[in-house]
């Protein structure tokens, strides 16, 4: 075990040790409060550019497997935990988490007082950090910090979007009834799994796909995916989306929701320490129901910027009263800040996919 340090941009530092490859890695440090689902978190493209701190102290308990991935690779820049499990136990496990991280050359450290670190981030706000197993000199780390890019204004979508358009395999799912075009800003596989299972043929497009390219597959609906970075920097997707207003049902999740908010003329802002976890209560303002949701976002759509005659709020986060969902008053367009696809997290909001399907169904009926 090698000594390691997590150095933060405000000068604070936390000691730990690395179980994985030595080296140095920098990114925005965020904490996640989910107690299970580390494999999904590691592979969620929305974490691109971020060092993830798990608040649950025992990580790796059930190993990793081939199914619970949200993309084809690990996206986090670093992984910080209290204790890695040396002997996992689960019938589906194929590998230990530490081996998995090593294989993917992810710098991961343990032995950190993750609660103190979380408290620090909560009080001071998210900030950039460097994990190192080589350099323990605070001055030198401070120098290096200057070169670490800020999350604000960063377009990270271009790094994680698919290079080429593809169709998600049906895998024995039902005969598709709808064609969905999904703009991949860092899409989680579980969204594709759910849509496919519900009878959609999902065409996944690179984020920079043009309206024409998308229209060419004649989609019944447009899906805007989750993804990393600052939504305001993804101007190209915002512009594309605008072209689809009124043409077909649109459903956005997380970054997709923020993009919609911006496309509606609203603004976004950065939250102090974001929402990353699997226990966030939201209230669906249409049916008054409360759902426990999975969340993972650092930016938020501002309620103020939206035109009340066009757009209305449909979901609110009960923890801090931030906006958690919107819909267009005229067009079949809606989006949520949380993650109805869960993975990890509760399935309470999965009914929203059904809403999307219903919208496409309604449109099909109207057209025929």
């Amino acid at each position, binding site marked *: 075990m090698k000594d390691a340090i997590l150095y933060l941009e405000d000068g604070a530092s936390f000691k730990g040790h690395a179980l994985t490859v030595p080296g140095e890695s920098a990114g925005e440090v965020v904490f996640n*409060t989910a107690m299970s689902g580390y494999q999904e978190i590691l592979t969620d493209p929305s974490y691109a550019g971020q060092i993830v701190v798990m608040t649950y102290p025992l990580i790796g308990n059930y190993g990793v497997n081939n199914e619970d991935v949200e993309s084809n690779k690990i996206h986090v820049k670093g992984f910080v935990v209290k204790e890695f499990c040396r002997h996992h136990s689960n019938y589906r496990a194929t590998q230990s988490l530490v081996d998995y991280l090593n294989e993917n050359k992810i710098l991961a450290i343990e032995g950190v007082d993750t*609660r103190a670190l979380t408290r620090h981030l909560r009080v001071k706000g998210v900030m950039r950090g460097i994990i190192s197993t080589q350099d323990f000199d605070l001055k030198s780390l401070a120098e290096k910090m200057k070169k670490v890019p800020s999350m604000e204004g960063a377009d990270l979508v271009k790094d994680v979007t698919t290079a080429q358009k593809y169709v998600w395999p049906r895998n024995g799912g039902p005969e598709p009834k709808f064609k969905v075009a999904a703009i991949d800003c860092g899409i989680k596989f579980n969204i594709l799994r759910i849509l496919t299972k519900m009878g959609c043929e999902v065409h996944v497009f690179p984020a920079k796909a043009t309206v024409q390219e998308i229209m060419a597959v004649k989609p019944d609906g447009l899906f805007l995916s989750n993804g990393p970075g600052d939504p305001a920097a993804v101007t190209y997707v915002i512009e594309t989306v605008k072209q689809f207003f009124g043409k077909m049902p649109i459903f956005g999740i997380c970054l997709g929701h923020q993009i919609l908010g911006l496309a509606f003329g609203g603004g976004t802002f950065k939250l102090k320490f974001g929402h990353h976890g699997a226990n966030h209560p939201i209230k669906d303002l249409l049916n008054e129901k409360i759902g426990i949701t999975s969340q993972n976002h650092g930016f938020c759509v501002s309620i103020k910027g939206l035109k009340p005659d066009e757009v209305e709020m449909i979901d609110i986060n009960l923890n801090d009263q931030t906006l958690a969902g919107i819909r267009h008053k005229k067009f079949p367009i809606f989006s949520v800040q949380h993650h109805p696809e869960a993975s990890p997290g509760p399935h309470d909001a999965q009914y929203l996919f059904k809403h999307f399907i219903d919208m496409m169904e309604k449109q099909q009926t109207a057209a025929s």
Partner: protein
Amino acid sequence: MPKRTDIKKILLLGSGPIIIGQACEFDYSGTQACKALREDGYEIVLANSNPATIMTDPEFADQTYIEPLTPEFIEMIIEKERPDAILSTLGGQTALNLAMKLYENGTLAKYKVKMLGADYNVIKKAEDRELFKKSMIKIGMDVPESAFAHTVEEARAAAEKIGFPVIIRPSFTLGGTGGGIANTMEELERTASLGIELSIINEVLVEKSIAGWKEYELEVMRDHKDNVVIVCSIENLDPMGIHTGDSITVAPQQTLTDKEYQNMRDAAIKIIREIGVETGGSNIQFAVEPKTGRMVVIEMNPRVSRSSALASKATGFPIAKFAAKLAVGYSLDEIQNDITKETPASFEPTIDYCVVKAPRFTFEKFPEAKDILGVQMKSVGETMAIGRTFKEALQKALRGLEIGHTGLDNKLDHHDIPDDRVRRKLEEPNASRIFYVKYALQKGWSIEKIYQLTNIDPWFLAHIEEIVKFEEQLMETFRRDRTIPDGMLRKAKEYGFSDAQLAAIMFIKETDVRKLRKEKGITACFKLVDTCAAEFEAYTPYFYSTYDQEDEAVLQIRKTAQKVKRPKKKIMILGGGPNRIGQGIEFDYCCVHASFALKESGYETIMVNSNPETVSTDYDISDRLYFEPLTFEDVMNIVDVEKPDGVIVQFGGQTPLNLARRLHEAGVPIVGTSVESIDLAEDREKFSEIIKGLGLAQPPNGSARSTEEAVAIAQRIGYPVLARPSYVLGGRAMRIIYDDKTLLSFIAEAKEVSEGHPVLIDKFIEDAMEIDVDAICDGQQTYVGGIMEHIENAGIHSGDSACVLPPTTVNESIINQIREDTGRLAKALEVVGLLNIQLALKGRKIYVLEVNPRASRTVPFVSKATGIPLAKIAAQVMIGNNLASFNLPEDFSAKLKHVSVKESVLPFSRFSGVDIVLGPEMKSTGEVMGIASTFGEAYAKSQMSANQALPRKGRIFLSVKDDDKRAIVFIAKRLRDMNFTLVSTRGTAKVLKSNGVEADAVDRYDQGRHHLLNLMTLMQKNEIALIVNTPSGESSQYDMRSIRAAAILHNIPCITTLQGAWAAVNGIEATKSKAFTIQSLQGYYSIQRGMLNAV
């Protein structure tokens, strides 16, 4: 929607006495409910027969009824109070069953009382095995395969279809009798045929056995808007087949992936909706097949449970409080999370630590019972530990159990234990299995092998192996270097090793380990339990210790200090740890009272305890709560951070008292009675001198350090003698001995129990009356809170004996003498705070048996009986107030207009083969109280509450020892006058007949003499209403054992002392002559006040 306005008055049902499976967690839930509902302006009527509860304190409800929890009594309460609604989901199975009966007999409809939380049909659906199974299948849940069979043939067919192993459960037999596991067709035929025969409807359920599967529990809450949250997941270390109450459990779940966990969560939500629990908490159990992940539903409790209490303490989410709020119409989002103050209750707690709960057993109290665990719960208490890792939490839990282990330690040397013994101890679940897992690992057995033997998930075994391997490293390092490097020492602490464990490794004293690590800066730090893993600022002061970097207690203490101009003085209260026989809810009651009283007087209170069932570990009670084991090390760590102005050790029972001297020597300011005085009372020789000096009498006695000494003492003072090891609680290993032979074997046993301490031998005063006194002394003046007359003779542990306050047969001059003696004893011992005195009264002679300068088990009972809050006053006295300032009514308890009877509740039905005869070793788990204007009625009520209601008609069996034969004639006459039929053994029958009392002679068993009835058959046929059997001496004591055991099986009240029989006669007379009356505590007190004012 806010709270309901159509209801104003709510009847809350408590859970009655503490029994195995139903402990003080329901005082915690009921107390929370009372507080929550009164906060919202509801009028609360409370019914509970257990006086040792906080909820039955008169200030917690508008009307408090300490009455039997029977449909008749509750109907009387309903008739008098006319509540709009009844809340039965917070009082355990007792309250739930009671509400069901009240529904079924039409009481609720008659008085238009609404059921809150869960209604009749919901409870029925959840509790009836068949209905529940059907509902589960309906919503697509997987359940263990099962089928009903009425013949062996049907059972065979069912087993063939289901596949072995199967469990056979006969329908409608008591406590699962006649059931069992069958692994082969042969076993099945045998078990099934027996089961079919035993079942009154000749039916057995053949169910797939899933023993060995992984076991999980989810705590679920739902509001009337159908919002559902999962408060906590729990994974059992011990697999299916061991009652979850007897299992070591961990929160949150550890070995399910998020996918599997979310499926379980979805299932739980579907289940609570299908069963239809409208509002409140439920507990749902699942089993998972380790190799395939197949998940089946086991059962659901449509109410708050022991696990809910655990989940509340484990997460900081107060389930019972919220359940009460939801029951009256609030929705989850309308309730604020007290801890964060910003966020609503409609969320799922996330935790950033690991919680381990370990059960506390008392097999040592029941030597005849086998230490084997199964589907019937046997533990009497539990401890919970919080750590940042499982390893740390497990070791903390094991030392928190207070069973002489300092963690996962080395009580035995694994070399000394034969392999086959280890194998057996692993295969057959038992109370010490976790330590055998360690021995097996030390022997080099593989995780796989241990898993095969135990079905304990490899995840747990691997963590235990890490502890074992690291300990080996520590030992090796020390052997080689004669020192342990700092890094390793720190890691040891992170792995949960106690100073005592390290001391054993390094061959130094525990205090030297402490000194050493403090020098090296390796000190405990405290983290907050905040429901949200630090995502939000938390305001609730609930801490646990760990070895990490940041100390949040220090930060919070500093912050609190900054806010006030003059910092408050701090008092730390040490709790009683896990419940056990002899130390339970009564002591928690006292600790909670101390906290209330000192808070009122402007002190900052700090509670330390490790028992998740209790009210004291509710973070609402004290200014700061430390959820920690009650060991010297753990307490000192808190002292280091808090620097309290005083520490109270006399309220939590023997646990904190045992720490008193060491804490005192470490410079901790102990308030109240000094450590010297505590020791003085324990030191037989010095104590005898004081007794002599005061001119009081004591039974002749001596303390023996050797066998020879013991025999010499016994011969000097004469048999029978009362012998016991010193420094034990609850009469552990105490015996009445009649001859040298028994004494010798006793001495041999006692050495094991209390190594290094002498054996105390007292002359046993036969046929004396025992008297208990609870009093408060401020160093000068003494206030006698209550004098209790025991119904059973001296020689039966005071905790097991029924008693009455005020005394009914002791004359005033003796009472006055006792009061005077109490004052003198208290002053001589320089008691500041509570003291309890046990006396024996023979004729007019008073013998002092014992003086305990601490809270006693009877403090809550006396407080309830008199309305004087003894523990609160004592706490204030301990911090320097004098008794005069309280203006207490002089000579009060003797002048009460009502009579209170305390009766104990015994766990014999849980331990098959154990004899029920009482002795000097305490065996009861709980107590009930009966209050009325006469002794007879109060006693009859107490018996009803203890689930041994006195009969009004029928056949009574009498069999007494020779000494009692004269006295039994009078009892028999009175019973005959009340139209009871009498049967007795031939000896007793002869005596009765010759005295003109008609009684049929019976054999005990069927001996083929058909002209004689036999008792066993009569009992089986339910034709015996009451048994009076006084066993004679030690040798023939076993004669009637099987009769008494059968009495338990058939739930026939069984009286084993003559005094008990007299009390029963009085009780029966009272119940026959007039109807029972009820009165609330508030009612009794106001009559009392009126009387006092008139004087």
